[in-house]
């Protein structure tokens, strides 16, 4: 599963860790995050994220 980077603040979503603040369990792929999920650091929406290179 690929990591994704927030284009606004640089936060990296790691599917292995999930996002405890947003109640996203470890093992959740970026693609499977709910549409209204937002960056836990800056609040940017999902479409601001790009795959990590």
């Amino acid at each position, binding site marked *: 599963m690929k990591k994704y980077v927030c284009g*606004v*603040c*640089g936060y990296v979503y790691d599917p292995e860790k999930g996002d405890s603040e947003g109640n996203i369990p470890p093992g959740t792929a970026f693609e499977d995050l709910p549409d209204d999920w937002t960056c836990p*650091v*800056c609040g940017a929406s999902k479409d601001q994220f790009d795959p990590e290179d």
Partner: protein
Amino acid sequence: MQPVEVKKDIYWVGAVDWDIRDFHGYTTYQGSTYNSYLVKDQKIALFDGVKKGFELDLIHRVHNLGIKPGDIDYLVVNHLEPDHSGGLPELIERLKPEKVLCSPMGEKAMKAHYHYQGWPVEVVKSGDTLNLGSRTVHFLETRMLHWPDSMFSYLAEDKVLISSDAFGHHWATSERFDDQVDQNQLMQHCAKYYANILLLYSPLVQKLLAKVQEMGLQIDVICPDHGVIWRKDPMKIIQAYDRWSRQETVDKAVVAFGSMWHSTELMAKAVADGLIDQGMSVKLMNLADNHRSDVMTEVLDAKVLAIGSATLNNGMLPWVADFLQYMRGLKPTGRLAAAFGSYGWSGEAVKEITAKLEEMKLELVGEGLRWQYVPDHEALKLCRELGQKLGQAAKAG
């Protein structure tokens, strides 16, 4: 309007705003400053601009250094918020700098603010450097501290950190250095700044402090973009940021409330009594009289938050909702909380406050306490017991 020497060939050339009282909803009872720094070397660099309307303060100080605007080669823009960038169009027009330097996110923000054409913008990233002759500027992006574009500029040879909004405070003074002002007032202004601007980014502050340590940055002087320069004791503010960003609290409670006919106010006083019984220091703050940014400053190191509201038109008072909305965004963590309030017939306020506190993931103590109309002795005893319970829980934690 004289420049002030910070270190050899490094000058403060900013502006003091004695008049500002409202900084986007943050009360600045004692004004602010917009700090700008000029470094004279084989190349001349200016770090950060000033707010629109203060350009001439800056230009006159530079003039008094014997430097013509056209002599300035580089303009470094560490942060695009208009209090520092509002003067950019006029400055770039007058200075005609060879380069305008900013972070990658800074370039985006600069375009979105000024819709410019033909500015000689050059993007620098963390680790990039700028040679001025006998000294080198090192750039460090500090994204979301407190905007995506925020950046530090570090003068390695001088051990001077130009820190943008970090380590700053809103306080208009004739003094320019930390050792020239009252220390308690200084730290109070810094606490207000942290609580109202940076608290929500505390996890990033922790990371940044760790990174600065790991990089082994030697810091003699911190030059923030607001307030006095830390030349005597830069560690004082770094240590305070470490405490605040770990959200360290003391045995202190903020009892913040809104009342209509003094009933919720009576309840608030009784809750405060119970907290005092347990040896807690208490700030009793009527939200009709205290500005949200001042309440937030007290929340910064308070272990307990007791929030009260009367019920108006089936909901909490709008000025209580105002504060809760504001506090929620600033993300205080690891506090104990409780709700209380008097009501007439329906009494939704306590439930609404409780929901907000839960949303903020604060630890609720006891059930929310509601009382119809005017509290009697029995009701006030219950309020005092709630305060005691909160105090006991705080002491136990």
